[in-house]
């Protein structure tokens, strides 16, 4: 079941991670909590999907990572958007809105 959801949400997940990081750097758990927050609890991203996505996006050059200290003073790996990541967020947002609009339109007409 989990696997299926990842497949379905592959594109969406990237977009959500990018969006979550717009407001500033976050560690993995932070990204996951932030996504929960901005989607009002609709998407709960499991680590099994989150970490592969983070690493892939870093390899793509959209994110950069560094080790820092968390609010409760634990060492944690933080992710931050790069310029390329910001550009990617722009194009993916536009793309998504186009799709969303089309889908909404399609579902309304019957």
């Amino acid at each position: 079941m989990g696997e299926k959801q990842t497949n379905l949400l592959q594109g969406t997940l990237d977009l959500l991670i990018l969006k979550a990081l717009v407001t500033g750097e976050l560690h993995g758990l932070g990204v996951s909590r932030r996504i929960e927050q901005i989607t009002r609890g609709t998407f709960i991203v499991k680590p099994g999907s989150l970490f592969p996505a983070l690493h892939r996006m870093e390899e793509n050059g959209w994110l950069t990572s560094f080790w820092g200290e968390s609010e409760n003073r634990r060492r944690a790996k933080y992710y931050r958007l790069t310029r390329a990541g910001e550009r990617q967020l722009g194009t993916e947002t536009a793309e998504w809105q186009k799709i969303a609009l089309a889908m909404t339109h399609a579902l309304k007409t019957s």
Partner: protein
Amino acid sequence: MPGSRLKAFWRNWFRKPAVEADLDDEVRSYVELAADERIAAGASPSDARRATLADIGGAERLKQQVRDERAGTWPETVAQDLRFGIRQVTQSPGFALTVMATLALSIGIATAVFSVLYAMVIRPLPYRDLPRIVALDTRSASGGSQAASWPEYVDWRRMSRSFTALAGLMQSTVGLEAGSGPVALHEVQATDNFFSVFGVNPLLGRTFAPGEDQAGRNDIVVLSYEVWQQDFGGRKSVVGQAVRLDGNRYTVIGVMPAGFRFPINMLNAVYVPMHLTANQMKNRGNHWLQTIAKLKPGVTPRQAEEDLDAVFTQLGKNDAFNAGRTVHAVDMTTWVVGDTSNALRLLLCAVLTVLVIGCVNVAGLLLSRGVKREREIALRSALGARRGRIVRQLVTEAVVFAAIGAAGGVVMAYGLLRVMRLLLIASLSRGAEVSLNVPVLVAALAAAVTVTIIAALVPALRLSATSPTMALKSGGAAGTSRGQHRLRTGFVVTQVALALALLVVSGLLLQMLQRLRDTQLGFQPDHLLTAEIDLPHGRYAGRDVLADFYQPLLDRVSALPGVRSAGLIQMLPGAGWGWNSEHVHIYGTEPLKSPRTDPAEVRFVSPGYYKVFQDALVEGRLADPRIDKSTTRLVCVVNEAFVKKFIPAGRDPVGMEIGDNDQTDTMPSQPNPRALIVGVVKDLRQTIYRPPFPEMDYMIAQIPAAQTMDAIGDMKLVIRTAGDPESLVPALRQTFGQVDATVPLRDPQTMNTVIADVLTFQRLENWLFGAFAALAVLLAVVGLYGLISQDVELSEREIGIRLALGATRRTILSGIFRRVGWMMGIGVAIGLAVTLAAERLINSVVAVHAEQSAGLVAALALGLALAGLVATALPARRASAVQPMEALREE
């Protein structure tokens, strides 16, 4: 972006420890952070940690998921799979070897044989406007093949309207005087328009100009590419150079490009214009000129035949030879491929059959193995392997098998082709040009590899789609699904059927070969040595070759130790025919009704020939050199077939006289042109394929000295030896050198080899079919064995239960054998049906005599069924040895 990917790739590969440590830290930090959250929500530290780990499904699993996503990981996983695949190969070597050997054999055989077929049947001949080139198969009124005489050819060429070129040619051999001694070459003597038929331009220089086949202008030669390379070092300056052929001076005018040959099997040839003897020039009854032609554009072969027939009719008004003559314009491809095309087509079917059997076998083996591994795969997927990953692993394994098998196939194809090329050169017209056909090799490889991968993929997909818990739970019942079972049964039946069809065909061919070999030749071929003598024209023209060469040679050869007797004949018994007189008439019997002709074979022999072949005299006497000389009465010895055809029953042939117009031309100085029959001998086969022809033997001693070179310039030396004929060759070569150093010893062969060479194609065909059939049977047996073992293995538990419930071992065994019996029965029935369906094709190659072959077919079917039962014996024994308690405890 590619830049960052590349950087990541680099990091993942070359700074792996750092990357791994980083990942390790990150996962640990995540677990701590998440656990902190849970503690904050009120959980105990240990519970929080456990819950978090359960949530991510284990730290190791999470790390693997990240690794899978990384750049540059696929080569690593492929390498892993490869290692695993190779380990699988070494772990079950029997299975692996079977699969790979099956692949190698199927690919190798299919490719090698197809390459031969392509070279011989499919590849176009190297001539321009091929469809317009025809060979003229002219036939006499009695229907026998009859070439043209020179005067006839001149008339046909002048009077016909359908051809842009009507050319004539004659093949012989010639000695080229090279620095190191005489080199034996093939010679094609042709008319001036010979090269215009083919439209192939010379590589260097020019070809014959019109009129260059006239005496005085015809001492010119065009070299084939091979001769140019081998004997002239490929020098461009060769054009214009003078060479000596058979002692005569010729000027090289051109060199043909590589690949141009006519006749197509003529390697090492030189092309010279016609050099006609006085007899050839004017004798209308001396039929020796083979004719080929190029049709005018738009003229069909049919129209050309009608045109020539009209010419024959017109000439036939005052010429017995052309009356009733017919012509068949055979297109060049048919003419070259000839008799063997049907046999080759049958062979092609056999090749495809073997390929199909091979693929079916590999598929069956892999499928049943996939079934065996169901549990392993279920376990993997339970442990978290993703579906794609499992499929990729199984496919990689299959690729390992396929790759090794394919490599073996390539090696096999090369090896087989080498062997076949050796065997083929002598017997097949285009054999010299056979080379490995790369597209076909690729196609065969692709077919086999695809089948392998699909066969591996099918169970992989099916299994990875079922839920692991189900597969694990169903335990021993795995793989017993009905569909699987039926598929594998179908495979076995197919294999048995195809194997039987191949067996029957090869059995029939073997029977035919046996019959041909057992043909009553009329002589014992053991202890006989033969060699060709081809006297150089320049040296011997006009001389008495009997006194100057043959007699001294025979005297010396007879004196060699180990020689029982030696003789001469112009055509070897068993290996050639067609040198005949068209108009044979016996004085005192019904005159022939013109234009019907009655041919009889003509042989020129020395007395020693009879001793060598141990001809049995039926009545009268043999020709005797002390009585029959060039000045005495012309005599001849005939065979029993001659007596049967020409002498009315009840009359004594000895003392009768033959009117033989064709030969009296050769013997003009005889006071009486009628030949007196002095003796009758038993029949010797002139050719293995036909019953004996009527034959008249003339004595070479009775040929007038001046005519000897024309009549017997080419002869066969035949020797009966006391011991091994081969061992005589060096001494014989020396003897030739002593008599005349310019005459090479050509082609020394034992008579057994000569006979075997005649049958080369049959032997090759047989050998191939035998190999195919053996391979097919082997594969079918292996397939059956695999299937039954599989069955037994999978149903061990069921057998255990049945035994525990009171079934006897006999019922278990009989159940298995009944199943095999059914499969064999259906396979054999289908196989026979297939054979019957292909009967027409088979019949065109080997006559299927129902009554003679029924026993053979039945025996083969029975043998195959028995082999099947034997293959079952081993797994069946294992089944009957199942211990109920153990079988039930397992799992």
